[in-house]
């Protein structure tokens, strides 16, 4: 069961091949057996999951099952889940049992899905390797010496290892697409505003977006359909109808215009990654697409702009963790300042503090114009690059990450870690959707092809990914890890 896609599982449940309870039990068994090594879950909600599966089976028996009823999922531990610990990978929220559900969690519950638990992540989604988690690093099931990527590293590793068929992640600068690439799965960052942010612990509000992580683009389409839509509780969610994402999946790619941004194939790109991406592009040509080179001239300013905007927003978003109403509180504070300073110093890890300090500094008097305002201006230029490119082409393609997964502990210097996100970060600044699909291997480590589309082009993007997956089988490959537990 563990090697099936969501789509296949849905068909099997509908056909009565097995029950949701059996499926859930089997996956919980795998988590139990394998996740000690992998560390992809922070919280496994076995009892709740079994109860939910039972309910799903009853609904099915009464003929009340929807397309997602009884399907097991996992949630990055950034989604608030009523009555379940929601830690955001931080000591700060280690004791936080959310009193409410995020909008997407509500939607998934209403769709009848079964949540197996909350997956590991970089602390407050700040990281590209899942090494900043308070709960320890996650290992990459393809190579236990490698990182799974981040920040949604737990979700990516859990799907890749067959612990769960799909999971939700969030992506602020590549946090869905990069771990999807590193773990050989498919991950979609939707257009900003497509999915409600209500109940998702905020990192950088103008960049954060939740999205599906699964084996296939088709599965991502199922999930996106379930979580997308306008939310009255999120002012930045877009009042725009949700298309049927499956409907587009059959369309031919004949005449598809693909742009290859020349800046995405420059210095620092691993040759194996480049070769795999170029090979993938050839597959598209064989499917009838035409390819041309385009330029996104401000690409190299994306990381600097991001490291002003994201930490600035984060420094403010994380001020609410003050030890007063929830979260970590230091022992015996001697006064108010001590309560704040020690609770926060103890509750936050090093990378989070680093970004809070950067953000606080760049917003402070005398620096605001030079940093924040400048970064917002550059942000407009970056968005304009994409708008211009999409005048000429339908989609852009390139690598999701300049290298395959690197070794655990390899990147000690924060700046070299930040530079990992060179191909993903601009997409968040521009708000456009992007998807990473498995496109080969460098040795044992997967390589991801990133496909970008204009605002709200998810239907086309998913189909472009889907057609590739019809023509290749990279997405069907499974790591050796956990095979014996089948």
């Amino acid at each position, binding site marked *: 069961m563990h090697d099936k896609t969501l789509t296949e599982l849905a068909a099997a449940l509908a056909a009565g091949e097995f029950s949701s309870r059996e499926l859930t039990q089997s996956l919980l068994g795998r988590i139990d057996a394998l996740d000690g090594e992998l560390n992809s879950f922070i919280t496994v909600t076995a009892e709740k999951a079994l109860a939910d599966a039972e309910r799903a089976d009853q609904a099915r028996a009464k003929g009340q099952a929807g397309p997602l009823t009884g399907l097991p999922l996992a949630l990055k531990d950034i989604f*608030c889940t009523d009555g379940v610990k929601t830690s955001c990978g931080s000591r700060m929220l280690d004791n936080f049992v*959310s009193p409410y559900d995020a909008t997407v969690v509500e939607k998934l519950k209403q769709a009848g899905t079964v949540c197996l638990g909350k997956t590991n992540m970089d602390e407050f989604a700040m990281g590209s390797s899942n090494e900043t988690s308070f709960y320890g690093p996650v290992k990459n099931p393809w190579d236990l010496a490698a990182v799974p990527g981040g920040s949604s590293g737990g979700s990516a590793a859990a799907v890749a290892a067959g612990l769960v068929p799909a999971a939700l992640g969030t992506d602020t600068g590549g946090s869905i697409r990069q771990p999807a690439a590193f773990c050989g799965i498919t991950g979609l960052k939707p257009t900003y505003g497509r999915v409600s942010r209500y109940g998702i612990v905020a990192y*950088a509000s103008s960049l954060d977006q939740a999205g599906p992580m699964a084996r296939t683009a088709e599965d991502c389409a199922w999930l996106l359909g379930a979580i997308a839509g306008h939310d009255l509780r999120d002012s930045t969610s877009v009042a725009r109808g949700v298309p049927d994402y499956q409907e587009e999946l059959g369309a031919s790619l004949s005449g598809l215009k693909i742009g290859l941004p020349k800046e995405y194939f420059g210095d620092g790109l691993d040759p194996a990654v480049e070769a795999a991406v170029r090979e993938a592009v050839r597959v598209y040509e064989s499917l009838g697409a035409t390819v041309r080179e385009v330029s996104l001239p401000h690409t190299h300013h994306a990381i600097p702009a991001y490291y002003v905007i994201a930490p600035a927003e984060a420094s403010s978003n994380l001020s609410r963790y003050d030890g007063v109403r929830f979260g970590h509180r230091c022992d015996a504070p001697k006064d108010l300042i001590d309560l704040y300073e020690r609770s926060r110093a103890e509750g936050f890890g090093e990378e989070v503090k680093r970004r809070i300090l950067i953000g606080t500094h760049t917003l402070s008097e005398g620096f605001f114009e030079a940093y924040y305002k400048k970064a917002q201006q550059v942000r407009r230029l970056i968005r304009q690059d994409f708008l211009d490119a999409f005048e000429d082409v339908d989609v852009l393609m390139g690598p999701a990450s300049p290298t395959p997964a690197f070794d655990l502990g390899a990147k000690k210097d924060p700046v070299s870690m930040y530079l990992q996100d060179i191909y993903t970060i601009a997409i968040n600044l521009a708000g456009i959707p992007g998807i990473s699909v498995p496109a080969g291997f460098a040795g044992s480590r997967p390589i991801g092809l990133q496909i970008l589309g204009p605002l709200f082009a998810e239907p086309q993007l998913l189909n472009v990914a889907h057609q590739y997956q019809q023509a290749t089988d990279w997405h069907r490959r499974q790591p050796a890890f956990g095979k014996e537990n089948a």
Partner: protein
Amino acid sequence: MMQWETVIGLEVHVQLSTRSKIFSGASTAFGAEPNSQACAVDLGLPGVLPVLNEAAVAMAVKFGLGINAEIPEVSVFDRKNYFYPDLPKGYQTSQMYHPIVGPGEVEIALEDGSTKRIRVHHAHLEEDAGKSLHEDFHGMTGIDLNRAGTPLLEIVSEPDMRSAKEAVAYLKAIHSIVTYLGISDGNMAEGSMRCDANVSVRPKGQQEFGTRTEIKNVNSFRFVERAIVFEAERQIELIEDGGKVVQETRLYDPDRDETRSMRTKEQANDYRYFPCPDLLPVVLDQAYVDHLRSSLPELPAEKRARFQDELGLSAYDAGVLSSSRAMAEYFEAVKEVCGDAKQAANWVQGELSGALNRENLTIDQSPVTSTQLGELIVRVMDDTISGKAAKEVFAALWNGEDDSADAIIDARGLKQVTDTGAIEAMIDQVIADSPVQVAQYRDAEPEKRGKMIGYFVGQVMKASRGTANPQQVNALLRQKLDNL
């Protein structure tokens, strides 16, 4: 002696009377159990997001229109970042760079009857903070976040005021505008309206401003006046003694009637304002603004002008009667019933206000309704009762003796005797009973007779037990005596 001038600017925080909070669906009702009206959004729980309340926007725009302010098409919410236990998110959502209300002006009435225009720099929307309760919880402070997220309109004046009295007049003008508009209850005791005063002094005639201090939370008209007077004197004394005013925040202590420095160990604040990424720019189209404009009631300054120009009231009367919406509405209702603005003004400001003041009641609490008072005035004007009797009727209405002036007039037999025959009979009787006085009158020079007639009037009034119409008595007496 150097002549000093005080320069004052006020920042007035007005709680808008919306049902729900500015960014959440929690109730804004006053006086609930602690934290029972602090929802997930108000508490700043992880993951929550703000959504702007339309009524708060409408109220802010109405205020802007009420002070003839520019209403920019786009306004933006910013975050003001600082840590305080009553500020759940660690930032206050406010408007720093693009406020919802642009420059406008407020007309204030000065004591000498003249008016002065005070410029409003801008007004912006923001969320209120919670409250810290300093009662003893084993040496801890308790935090109640019910108030957190209540919409505030912060109205920032230019430093256009030159005395504590002007500052109070401005504050009263703001109070009457917001209550007229129905956008706030203006209840200062419950904190619905709060005020910070920026005060500086300079030698008369000097152009540049002196160093200012900010006095926090002067929350009654009286305290505003006293705090400014104290602070200006303190600054003058300081400068005259060779010292320098330090730019700082000071707190007014009403018990000691002084301001004192809020010395904290804190370094200077740096609020790190930046646009709130959870909220989008607020865009107001012209149709929306026009719709709000058409719904505006007549405002105090317009009312004051109309009372003067159309009703012929004095500047003073017009000012007093337009000072609050309730007062103006009461006055206009009385005027409707009695048909005479001046009589209505005299009664509302005289007998009625006196009685209200004595019993410490507001005009809404008046036991005498505007209709009752109007009908009473009608009876004075049509000579049914004398002015003296009218006061008696008013007192009876106030005490709830009966529910109309007419009923009381009947019950107490206060109707004036205007029947000429009856009065003549009384006059004849008095003349017959006062031969000595009649003789004196007859012998007197005509110019001295005017004084002497008073005796006869008094006798006739006495005989009528006050019900005879004095003017009529006077006229008939002259006629009779002069023709004897």
